[in-house]
């Protein structure tokens, strides 16, 4: 929410973005303001260094991965549309909207499947569609405190993969990932209220 953009028309391609992401005007304005604040040199797009400037992100164990998720397909810059698209995953799910949606339309970015897909991508670094044991191990190493030894970490990894893996290939595919989280209230857990 910055003093620089107070009018929605200043945002390029605003209608298309709004259709894709489903954000309200207020949210889009706020996001645009934030985008401009992050974009120090006013390039019109964000690079990795811009995002890394955010202090708290540096201490976050998954900070790097989140930053990478903004830059799709190896590009080094992200424009506002891409920025909004990624953040649209965290928009709270609106019950009425979900009910009145036309089933032929593509799923909105903040549907449960898409949220899960986003999370899956954070685990699956090599983008092969599966979370291999190594990838799981890396995530666990980030998540579990330093007090656990390596062997124990390996056991935990094995156990985790075994729990989720149904077809026995030693890796967790997207469907298995979804299934293991079916009891969790993803719509609530992966939503930020301010992005309504």
């Amino acid at each position, binding site marked *: 929410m910055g003093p620089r953009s107070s009018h929605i028309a200043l945002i390029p391609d605003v209608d298309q973005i709004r259709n894709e992401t489903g954000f309200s005007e207020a949210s889009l304005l706020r996001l645009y303001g*934030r985008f401009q604040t992050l974009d120090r040199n006013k390039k019109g797009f964000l690079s990795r260094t811009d995002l890394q400037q955010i202090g708290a*992100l540096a201490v976050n164990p998954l900070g790097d991965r*989140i930053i990478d998720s903004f830059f799709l397909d190896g590009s080094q810059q992200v424009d506002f549309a891409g920025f909004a698209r990624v953040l649209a995953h965290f928009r709270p799910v609106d019950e009425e909207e979900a009910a009145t949606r036309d089933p032929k339309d593509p799923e909105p970015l903040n549907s449960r499947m898409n949220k899960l897909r986003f*999370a899956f991508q954070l*685990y699956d670094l090599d983008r092969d569609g599966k979370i291999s044991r190594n990838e799981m191990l890396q995530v666990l190493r980030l998540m579990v405190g330093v007090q656990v030894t390596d062997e124990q970490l390996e056991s935990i990894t094995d156990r985790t993969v075994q729990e989720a893996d149904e077809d026995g290939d030693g890796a967790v595919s997207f469907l298995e990932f979804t299934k293991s*989280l079916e009891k*969790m209230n993803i719509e609530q857990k992966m939503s930020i209220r301010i992005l309504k």
Partner: protein
Amino acid sequence: MLRTTLLLLCLPLAGAGATEEPTQESGSLGEPPPGLALFRWQWHEVEAPYLVALWILVASLAKIASRVQAGLLDFLLFGSLISAVDPVAVLAVFEEVHVNETLFIIVFGESLLNDAVTVVLYKVCNSFVEMGSANVQATDYMKGVASLFVVSLGGAAVGLVFAFLLALTTRFTKRVRIIEPLLVFLLAYAAYLTAEMASLSAILAVTMCGLGCKKYVEANISHKSRTAVKYTMKTLASCAETVIFMLLGISAVDSSKWAWDSGLVLGTLFFILFFRALGVVLQTWVLNQFRLVPLDKIDQVVMSYGGLRGAVAFALVILLDRTKVPAKDYFVATTIVVVFFTVIVQGLTIKPLVKWLKVKRSEHHKPTLNQELHEHTFDHILAAVEDVVGHHGYHYWRDRWEQFDKKYLSQLLMRRSAYRIRDQIWDVYYRLNIRDAISFVDQGGHVLSSTGLTLPSMPSRNSMAETSVTNLLRESGSGACLDLQVIDTVRSGRDREDAVMHHLLCGGLYKPRRRYKASCGRHFISEDAQERQDKEVFQQNMKRRLESFKSTKHNICFTKNKPRTRKAGHKKKDGMANAEATLEKPRDLGFQDTAAVILTVESEEEEESDSSETEKEDDEGIIFVARATSEVLQEGKISGSFEVCPSPRIIPPSPTCAEKELPWKSGQGDLAVYVSSETTKIVPVDMQTGWNQSISSLESLASPPCTQAPTLTCLPPHPLGIEEPQVPLDLSADPRSSFAFPPSLAKAGRSRSESSADLPQQQELQPLMGHKDHTHLSPGTANSHWCIQFNRGGRL
């Protein structure tokens, strides 16, 4: 007061009626009724007088109904004490109902924090009443409002200070575990008293004390202290609650304490329901602007219906001063009725209501590693995204708090060893493993090891803590809660750990029979996919652990198991000792595998630093687990005084009938024995000194050998008889039985002596046989009849 309220309500009606009149008259003119109407609605004609008459009627009714003489302040006082929701009643009811957590937290949290408000309001109004309504000035109202904040925040601050103190002191109580419950009680009570002393909210102080210190104290104090605190508190709470409700009941019966006034009672009942609903609706509307998941209508209904009044209201009304508040008796009666009504009627009907409205219930699902892991990941993801968006929302602050906690608070307040192992994902993993181990043992499952050992199935899980019983009940789907006030502990890992120890060691000690897995047994549950998967997981984990834990690194951890196992009796001690001994000589024993299995679970959790030394010294006796053969024995360790008995040889006799009865001795034929005979022939080097000692002690007739000889572990003799049957010189293990033998073994020892009566050197044995029911050998016989039964149980 009641009158004026009713009057006020009627005023708008009258006003509306008055203004309507002129318009009605003009509107009704041009409409002649069709035909002859038998009945017409002539409201507009009688409107004004009707309303006036109604007004007067209601006012007079109120006048008749209410005889209470009380002013505005008195009613304010009454209102302050009757409107507070009681945490005890709410807790009791909601515990049974199991609504979803959000709802529970809202109602219960409200009732807890309500206490501060109630107390403040009550005190303020009380002091106003005492001052007299004429003397109250505007500044007093401001002061009243300010005191609300002072009292509640001050009480919370006092509580937090004591929480800090408590957490800090429990960090250092490792060596004096016994004072831990005492510390908890005293400091919590001190928080209460301090807040009372400063006329702050004492209840809030105690609540915040508990909230603030729980995490650290739980990690610091021992498991037993935790149990002690939990159940003592529950008992005390239960007693206090019972006493106060008894007082309520007695006061209800004792009519000298109250005076009935129908108007007041009925009015109060109606208004508390109505205004509570109104308040809930208004406040939820405000709250929903800030919530991610809004509170819907059903939640609001439950919230307003779940507002039970209880003992606090009653206590406060009893405390009123009759000279200052002349209407006290009416208030007491009303309070009693209100409390009864809300607790009984609302309390009983809330469960069917919740079911009917299909309120979301709390889900108790089994913890899975995946969920735990992903929950943590999502938390971090969301915190990161909040940073990107630039919004300092819930996740951001939570993350910040957790970091602060990890860096400073936990290090300061938690014991170092507890701090090191605290991790939620690890906890889930640990718990899952314990659960697997227990279910495995229960089903008589096969521990996957190269020897094909089977562990005997344990008959019952009675030794497990009752938290698991509640879990069982819950898992089996019944809604019954054994104990209304049981709240499952978070860390049941320790109970389970102990249970696993118990089970596996019990199984580990005796020679197990090979059990044929019954197709339908009392404890056999048919396998399904989940079971198979669990088993597979378990087996693979076990295999992996075996490989990793064969290293000597973990040998030191073994001794820590002794204090735990000691409580279960000496059998376990022997078992553990054997474990230690055998592990020092790595051999492919199935027994070893078992021991490793046991110990892995243990060692991961144990503190490595301090405890091991002292405990090691306590338990470490010299354990003889060797088998001496004739050559060894004759090797010069035998001194002259042994002429009486020429060759102390060990010879395990063939099992006697009595021995056959012993559970671990039957079914021997099939058992693969993994103690190779060579190993048992040699007295290990480190035990030779002990051997020497014991021999030399025999020379001195002064003292019975038991005091000088090292502890002997005498396990059942090896059934696959190795040596020629010679005289088993029974020391009969009688002195040993007092500390090394379970009683049945002592019997076995004695029966051995019986059976060997027929052997050649009978005459030596006879005196011994005469002593067979003594538990101590007299010195005279001791030295001559020595059978040092060093047997190693080959298969445990």
